[in-house]
C-alpha cells in the first residue's frame, strides 16, 4: 500500500471536521438572521393562527441545538428537506440551479485557462519586457474590475446596442422547453437532442457572462502562472538544459512547464471552485438561474434548509478539489513517491 494512504485517511477525517464546522457556522449565523422563513410560506398579511401552525410545522419551536441535531441527521441521509422560499425540495432546486452554474463555470474556466496560461508563460519568459507589463496590467485589470459592472456594461454594449449576444437568461423564450433536460447544461442537452438552434441560442446567452467570469479567472491564473514560471526559470537545471543546447522555448516546455504543472493545476482547481460557488452578482445581472443566486435569495429569505445544503455543497467542492490536487501532486511529482 502506497505510503500516502494513511495521510489521505487523516485528511478525510479533518475534512469531516471542517464540513461540520462550516455547517455549524452557517446554521447559527442563519439563526441570528432577523428573517422569518415562515412569512415566505404564509405571506406577509397572514393571521397569527396560520403563522403558529406553520412555525410549528417547520420545527422552529424546538431549541436550536435540537434543530441542528435534526438537521445533521437529515444531512447524513442526504435529506435536505424543502426549500421554503421556492416551495420545492432543496434537492430538486439544486438539481436545477447547479447545472446552470456548472455550465457557466466550465465555459468560464476554459476561457480563463486558454488565455491565462499562455499570458502568464509569455510574461514570465519575457520578464520585464513590454509584453510582461501589458500582460501584467491586463491581469490586474481583471482582478480589479467589478464583474457585475462589466456585466451591465457588456449587456448595454453587446446585447442592447450591437445585438451580438443573447440577453439575460439562458435561452430566448421560443427555445425554452425545446430540449429535455438531461444534464441540465443546455449546451450539452441541445446537442444531445440535436437542436443546433437551441445550442447556438444557449451559446449566445452564455458567451457574455462566461467571458466576464473567464476574464477574472484568467487574471488569477495568468498571474500565478507567471510567478511559478519565474521561480522555475531561475533554477539551475534550466541553465543546465540551455547548456545542453536546448532552445529557450524547448526549455520552457520540456522542463519549466512540466515543473509548474502541479502548482498550476491546483491554482486552476481553486479558480474553478470559486466559479462553482456561483458568482452571485454576475448571475443577478444576467438573470442566470444559478447556484449563487439561489444561495443568496435563500439566505435573504432566511431559508436555512436551502442555505445549509448549498454551503455543504460548497464545502464539499472545496475539500474535494483540495484532495484532488493533493492526489495530482502525488501522481505528477516523482519526489513525493
Amino acid at each position, binding site marked *: 500500500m502506497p505510503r500516502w494512504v494513511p495521510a489521505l485517511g487523516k485528511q478525510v477525517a479533518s475534512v469531516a471536521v471542517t464540513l461540520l464546522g462550516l455547517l455549524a457556522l452557517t446554521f447559527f449565523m442563519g439563526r441570528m438572521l432577523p428573517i422569518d422563513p415562515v412569512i415566505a410560506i404564509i405571506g406577509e*398579511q*397572514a393571521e397569527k393562527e396560520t403563522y403558529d*401552525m406553520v412555525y410549528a410545522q417547520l420545527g422552529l419551536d424546538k431549541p436550536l441545538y435540537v434543530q441542528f441535531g435534526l438537521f445533521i441527521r437529515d444531512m447524513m441521509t442526504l435529506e435536505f428537506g424543502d426549500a421554503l422560499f421556492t416551495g420545492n425540495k432543496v434537492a430538486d432546486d439544486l438539481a436545477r440551479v447547479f447545472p446552470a452554474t456548472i455550465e457557466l463555470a466550465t465555459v468560464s474556466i476554459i476561457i480563463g485557462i486558454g488565455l491565462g496560461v499562455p499570458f502568464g508563460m509569455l510574461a514570465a519568459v519575457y520578464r520585464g519586457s513590454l509584453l510582461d507589463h501589458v500582460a501584467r496590467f491586463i491581469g490586474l485589470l481583471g482582478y480589479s474590475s467589478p464583474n457585475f459592472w462589466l456585466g451591465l456594461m457588456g449587456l448595454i454594449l453587446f446585447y442592447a446596442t450591437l445585438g*451580438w449576444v443573447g440577453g439575460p437568461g439562458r435561452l430566448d423564450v421560443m427555445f425554452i422547453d425545446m430540449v429535455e433536460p438531461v444534464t441540465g447544461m443546455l449546451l450539452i442537452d441541445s446537442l444531445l437532442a440535436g437542436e443546433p438552434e437551441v445550442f447556438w*441560442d444557449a451559446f*449566445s446567452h452564455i458567451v457574455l457572462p462566461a467571458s466576464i467570469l473567464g476574464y477574472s479567472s484568467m487574471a488569477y491564473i495568468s498571474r500565478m502562472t507567471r510567478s511559478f514560471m519565474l521561480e522555475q526559470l531561475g533554477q539551475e537545471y534550466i541553465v543546465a538544459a540551455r547548456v545542453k543546447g536546448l532552445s529557450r522555448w524547448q526549455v520552457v516546455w520540456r522542463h519549466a512547464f512540466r515543473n509548474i504543472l502541479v502548482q498550476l493545476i491546483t491554482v486552476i482547481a481553486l479558480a474553478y471552485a470559486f466559479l462553482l460557488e456561483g458568482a452571485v452578482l454576475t448571475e443577478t445581472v444576467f438573470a442566470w438561474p444559478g447556484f449563487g443566486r439561489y444561495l443568496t435569495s435563500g439566505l435573504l429569505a432566511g431559508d436555512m434548509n436551502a442555505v445549509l445544503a448549498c454551503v455543504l455543497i460548497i464545502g464539499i467542492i472545496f475539500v474535494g478539489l483540495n484532495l484532488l490536487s493533493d492526489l495530482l501532486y502525488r501522481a505528477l511529482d516523482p519526489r513525493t513517491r
Partner: protein
Amino acid sequence: MSTTVRAAIAATLLMAAGATQAVSPAQAATPRDALVMAWNLDALITFDPAQIAEVNGNDIIRNVCEPLVNYDLTDVSKILPNHAESWSVSDDGLTITMKLRDDLKFPSGKKATAYDAEWSLHRVVHLGFGNSANFTQWGFHKDKVAEQIKATDEHTLVFKLSKPYPVGLLLSAMFASGSTGILDKELGEKNARVNDGKNDYGNAFFKTAPVCVGAYRVTRWNTNEVVILERNDNYWREPAKLKRVIIRHVPESGAQRLLLEKGDIDVARLLNTDDLRALDRNPAIHVETTVMHGFAYLAFNAEDPILGNPKVREAFRYLVDYQGLGKTVLEYQGNPRASLVPEGAFGALNAEEGQPFKLDLDKAKALLAEAGYPDGFTKKYIVSANNIAPVVAQHVQANAAKVGIKLELEQMADANLFTRARSRDFEVLQIGWGAGYPDADSMISRHAVNPDNRLEAKLAQYPSWRSSWQDVKINEKAETARMERDPAKRIEMYHDIQRYMMKNGPMAYMYQTVRPIAVRKEVKDFAITPFNVVYRTAGK
C-alpha cells in the same frame, strides 16, 4: 505582444460572430400563438389557490382557477356572475344560495360540480393559510365549515352566515377572491397526503399544477425561470385566443425593457419609472397603468414616546413632496394619496379630500413644536432595498432633516423587513399593503381596527397592531359600518373613519400604488384591472 492581444481580440470577436448568427432568429417576434410575459417570479412558491399569498401568483391563478363571481372589468365595484350564474339571499340575510353553471369543465373535460366547489372552499378553511382569512373573517370556521358551506346538488351551493353581512361586501370580499376557485375534488382527495394526522387536501399535489376551472392551466413551472400556461380547450367560455402564456423570470427592469424593445417578449411587468418613460415614447409599445388598491406608507410605532404623539405623526405627513414625487419618481408607480381607503374602492374619499397634504416644512415644524419637539429628534427608519422604496425613503429623509428630524435609514431584504414589521420591531417603517377587495372595509378592518393591542396577542395581520396603535371607538365604528346594509349610510361612516385616521392614525400613507404594464402593440385586448389581469382575451 501585439500578436497575443490581437489573437485574444480576434477570439472574442469570433465568439461574438458565432453568437450573432445565433441570436438572429431571436430578432424575430415572439411565437404567434403565445403571450410572452416578463416578470419577477421570486416570490412565487405555489399555485395552490388556498395558499397563494403574493401578487404574481394571485394574478396568474385568477386565469387558472377563476373565482365564483368576478369583478366587472370596467368597474371593480360591480360584481358579475362567473361560475355562479346567480345568487339569492334569504330575508334574514343569513343564507346565501348560489347556482353554479352547468357547463363547467376541468381541462380534462370532466364536469365540475358544486361538490367540487364545496370541497375546494372547505379545504381553504381547513388548510388555514393566509387566504383562509377570506372566509374566517366572515365567521366561517374549521369546525363548522362543513355545515356553513354545503352543496345541496350538482349546481347549488348554500352558505350559512353567522351574521347578516351586506351581500355586496361578501361578494367582493369573499366570493370574488382568488381562493374560491373550483379544484378537482376527486384528484385532490386521491392525492391528499396525510402526515401525522394532518391532511394536506392535495396542497402538495396542486402546488405545481392545480386542476381547476379556468381559461388556462399550468403545464410547466421552473422556479425562478419560467411558468408556462396552456389553453384549456374545455373552457366554458369561448377558449382563450392564444394557445400558450409564457411567463419568464426576469428580475431586472433594464433587462425587461431590452427584451420588450427587441420583441423577445410581449409584456413587461417589472419596470422602473425611467424605463417606462422611454418605452412610452416607443411607437411599438404602450404602457398600461392601473391604479391598484394598495398603498406605500410610513408606519410609526406608537409605543415610542415621541412617535406615539399624533402631532408628530401628522408632521411627517407634511414632509413628503407629493406633487414633486408624483411627477418624477412615482410616475407610472403611484398616485399620492393620504387616506387609507384606496381611490376606486367602495366608500373611498374622493381624490381631493383623500389627499389634503402637501410638502410644508413650516407646518411640520409648527406641529413638532406643538408636540414639544421644536428641534426634532432621531429615529431609525427601515425600508425595503428594492425598487423605488429607497429613493422615496431618501426623499423623506432629506425633508425630515430640514425640520430637525434625523432619520437613520436601514434598507433590507423584504423578508427581513416583513419580519421586523410583524414583530413590532421598528420605529419608522416604510412598507406596502394591498387591499384584498375593492371595499373600504378591506383596509379599515386591518389598518384601523385592532382587536387586541397586547404584544402577546401577536395579531401581526393587523398593521394597526404592528404599530401598537388601538382606538376602541374606531373598532366599533368599523364593525357597525361593516354590518350596515344601506350603502349610502355605509359610505358615510367610512368617510368619517378615513377623516379621523388621516389625522390620528399610526400611518402616513404616501401614495396609492400604480401597476404599470408595458405591452407591445401587436397584443390586442389584454384586459387589465386592479384585481384581474385577463390573459384569455389577449390576442395578436
